[in-house]
């Protein structure tokens, strides 16, 4: 548990380029259905704030269409006439044609192809294309939809789920799939000895999920307590081939299996692609899975692409150049500067860029509020008498020029933030959170009420006459964060505060944040893989490892942290979606009032793709560009030759 918490925080803290490394679903809910979403989308469209690549109305129609498709499936479980024994899922996407290869940049080599033990985001991005889950979160609609399970029922107390599996499916090596594979998979994930990162997510109310086979094509899951929209747990939990792995599992050799050196024939999954070859230092190639369980409306089997190649390009600039010259077909998570360079040449090149608007990432400044040993860190603990004052934090927040950050750091491709739910999270954001503009006036008033005053030369001093001086740390190598820190430094200089920016290498920074607590203030970013509040539990529970300003508290240090704890725990077991929303709205209010994090901005999700790529529908949830890889196709014939 601990190990996992730490690893997760590392992944999440590592910057926008690592943050997306979600290695497993976080349970969550969107149960209340279309009405809320529709209302929000309509509101967005009316106010003209929607920054979608497509008009909001189209998105709305699409959601409705998808939902309709899903319902149709649950009701009739139509099967393709061509494969009568196989219950294929029929994709509603544009009908394409087969062939061609897609080349994607990858910033590092994957470490493993093993979905059970992979923790790094790079490996998981590759593995994601080779696996399938029982219930899947549609990255576009942000809702759950049937995958390997064609339908499911929930008991009235919300504790029992019965999933009906598709019949006649085969793994990518041709071996048939049934409930025994599901049972085996969950046995593996829940086995403590295997140490799978997914295990934590499959524990509800302190107990592992109970898994029972009903028949060859139905599995029953029992939860220890009601859990808000528990079907989201199943997203990205790969179903494993029992015929290949059971022997290894009983011998206790699961952890080492499916490394990069494994022969392609020994790896199988239910995903759209299967492993073909790995060229060290150069690329990893996946090929089309001929047994994939989705088809299109014309009766063709998906995926359309013959091959998917991940080429390893370490630097972001080099990735951008490869994309610009057409050596890579998709660019994910571009930064605003690169995006602007690529946009200049967009007219003359054969690619299209997409600004998807604010995503789920948010960046913030926070002060060290840990319970410090005043002997070990006398300076910092003295300064904590400022940091602990809400009005001091509010004053800092009021003095920060968020618009300048948006303009200078993100070239306008970001949204200023005052609360922790970014506008990209359309269903959960509390829109009544106040968004006061920058005001040095108000900041000065707040400081005055807190007992601060100014010396004749403009230096801010506290009640005891000490000059206000502190340092902001951030991780070196993330240009955006150090730029934000530099802007904040200049903003606070105008209040008479002397602020220093210190950049540290990421590991050293994390060690200070979660280990020694030897820092004063820090600029950092977080980003969830899922839009649901449960994905943020680790941040807002006072016992959480990512409760950054004061992590892993035994008892909540302040009354408002205690209230947030209660609210977060209550929403976890509340099944009604609107009730959950009310609880989470209150959490957002408490956070905004007490400013443990001083929120800065939420960067837009910026991606690009070759203009000849069909069905390219980037989403703000990760994986932004490859989530519908099985539906992507080339509008014109291309050679499938390896580059």
């Amino acid at each position, binding site marked *: 548990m601990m190990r996992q918490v730490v690893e997760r925080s590392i992944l999440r803290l590592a910057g926008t380029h690592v943050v997306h490394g979600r290695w497993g679903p976080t349970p969550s809910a969107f149960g209340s259905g279309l009405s809320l979403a529709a209302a929000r989308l309509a509101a967005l469209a009316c106010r003209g704030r929607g920054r979608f690549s497509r008009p909001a109305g189209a998105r709305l129609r699409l959601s409705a269409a998808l939902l309709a498709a899903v319902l149709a499936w649950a009701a009739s479980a139509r099967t393709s006439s061509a494969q009568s024994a196989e219950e294929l899922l029929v994709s509603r996407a544009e009908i394409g044609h087969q062939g061609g290869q897609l080349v994607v940049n990858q910033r590092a080599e994957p470490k493993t192809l093993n979905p059970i033990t992979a923790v790094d985001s790079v490996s998981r991005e590759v593995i994601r294309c080779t696996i399938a889950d029982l219930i899947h979160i549609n990255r576009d609609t942000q809702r759950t939809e049937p995958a390997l399970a064609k339908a499911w029922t929930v008991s009235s107390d919300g504790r029992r789920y019965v999933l009906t599996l598709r019949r006649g499916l085969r793994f990518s090596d041709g071996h048939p799939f049934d409930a025994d594979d599901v049972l085996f998979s969950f046995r593996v994930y829940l086995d403590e000895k295997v140490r799978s990162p997914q295990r934590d997510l499959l524990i509800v109310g302190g107990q592992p999920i109970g898994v029972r086979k009903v028949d060859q094509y139905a599995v029953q899951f029992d939860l220890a307590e009601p859990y808000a929209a528990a079907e989201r747990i199943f997203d990205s939990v790969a179903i494993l081939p029992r015929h290949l792995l059971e022997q290894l599992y009983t011998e206790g050799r699961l952890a080492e299996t499916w490394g990069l050196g494994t022969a392609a024939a020994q790896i199988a999954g239910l995903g759209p692609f299967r492993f073909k070859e790995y060229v060290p230092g150069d690329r990893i190639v996946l090929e089309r899975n001929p047994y994939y369980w989705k088809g299109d409306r014309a009766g063709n089997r998906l995926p359309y692409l013959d091959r998917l190649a991940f080429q390893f390009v370490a630097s*972001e600039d080099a990735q951008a150049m490869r994309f610009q010259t057409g050596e890579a077909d998709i660019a994910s998570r571009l930064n605003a*500067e*690169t995006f602007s360079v690529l946009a200049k040449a967009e007219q003359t090149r054969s690619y299209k860029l997409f600004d998807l608007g604010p995503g789920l990432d948010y960046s913030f400044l926070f002060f060290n509020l840990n319970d410090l040993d005043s002997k070990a860190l006398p300076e910092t603990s003295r300064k904590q008498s400022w940091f602990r004052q809400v009005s001091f934090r509010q004053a800092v927040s009021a003095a920060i020029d968020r618009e300048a950050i948006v303009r200078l750091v993100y*070239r306008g491709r970001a949204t200023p933030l005052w609360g922790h739910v970014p506008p990209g999270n359309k269903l959960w954001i509390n829109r009544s959170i106040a968004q006061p503009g920058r005001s040095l006036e108000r900041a000065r008033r707040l400081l005055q009420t807190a007992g601060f005053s100014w010396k004749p030369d403009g230096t801010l001093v506290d009640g005891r006459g000490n000059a206000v001086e502190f340092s902001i740390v951030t991780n070196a190598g993330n*240009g955006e964060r*150090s730029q934000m820190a530099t802007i904040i430094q*200049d903003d606070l200089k105008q209040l008479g505060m002397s602020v*220093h*920016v210190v950049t540290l290498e990421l590991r050293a920074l994390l060690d200070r944040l979660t280990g020694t607590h030897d*820092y004063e203030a820090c600029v950092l970013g977080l980003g969830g893989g899922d839009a649901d509040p449960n994905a943020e539990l680790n941040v807002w529970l006072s016992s959480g490892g990512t409760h950054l300003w004061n992590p892993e508290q035994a008892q909540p240090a302040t009354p408002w942290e205690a209230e947030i704890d209660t609210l977060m725990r209550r929403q976890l077991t509340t099944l009604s979606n609107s009730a959950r929303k009310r609880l989470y709205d209150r959490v957002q209010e408490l956070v905004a009032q007490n400013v443990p994090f001083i929120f800065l901005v939420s960067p837009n999700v910026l991606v690009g793709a070759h203009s000849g790529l069909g069905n390219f529908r980037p989403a703000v949830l990760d994986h932004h560009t490859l989530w519908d890889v099985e539906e992507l196709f080339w509008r014109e014939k291309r050679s499938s030759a390896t580059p």
Partner: protein
Amino acid sequence: MSLPGSNVGNLRNVRTSLSLLGLLYASVLLAGLLAPYDPTEQNRDMPFAPPSRLHFAEPRGTFRLRPFVYRVVSKPGSFGEYAEERGTTYPMRFLVRGAPYRIAGILSCTRHLFGFDEPAKVFLFGSDEYGRDVFSRLLYGGQISLVAGLLAASLALGLGTILGGLAGFYGGWADEICMRVAELFLALPWLYLLLAVRATLPLHIDPVQAFLFLVVVIGMVGWARPARLIRGIVLSGKLREHVLAARAFGASDSYLLRRHVLPQAAGVVFAQLAVLIPQYILAEVTLSFFGLGVGEPVPSWGNMLAAAQRYDVLTSYWWMFLPGIALSPVFLLYYTLANALHQQTARLTS
């Protein structure tokens, strides 16, 4: 005109490069006076403004001896695109009052050599991503980079000469100790050592401390390589016949080292100096990455160059490379100086 390599030409080379270097150091020292703005002043509505154009001719054709500028404003809805407002002219004024500064950390002053009336801004070398004046930053940045590079190289070479000289001259256990320590220094994983050093230091180090720290760290890391070179030269030099003869006449060790052996290494030392100074100016960038160098917003050539190493800057804002272009005459001057001095000493010792 004199033949290259001749005595007169050499002396002239030494003199020119010395005086040019002197001028450079003086202008960097007087950065406050020469720079029109405070190097940390941000103009947030003018990021990446191109170098300002100084005008002499008015639109109607009248020529003015005193240069003037137009106010530059960013085009609405764009980033980094600017246009001149041709309505009002802003003439250059001399010895204007502006941001307060100190010369050499002592003399407090507010006069700047030249300036323009607000709201016109003049960025002779353009502005950076925060709208800070690159020209002012270049001058201030030189204070750190030029001096730190020189001092660190001197420290490394000084240590290297002393230890390498002793090792080569005395041999035996002195040699063993010096050379084994040098090997240790060469073999140390500096990256991790620097991380460890960073962890023991307080988070914020003030610029003067950071500066001294830079010099000491770079100097300490760098002495081993020149020490090995110099040891080799001393080792062969001490067996030369004129050295042996001097010894036979009863010359002391220190006299021999000073008069006969070390001068033979002078060429290597100067060549090393010319190589090491630029290297050490750049080393500061690496140290800044570990939070050991000079941090924002204090300018240095190192962190200015680091800011230019981005795809968008590379393709769009050429003036961000001016610190790099500024470095090349500096290196050239050092190289010429080292070369001339080398020939001079070679003539003296031969």
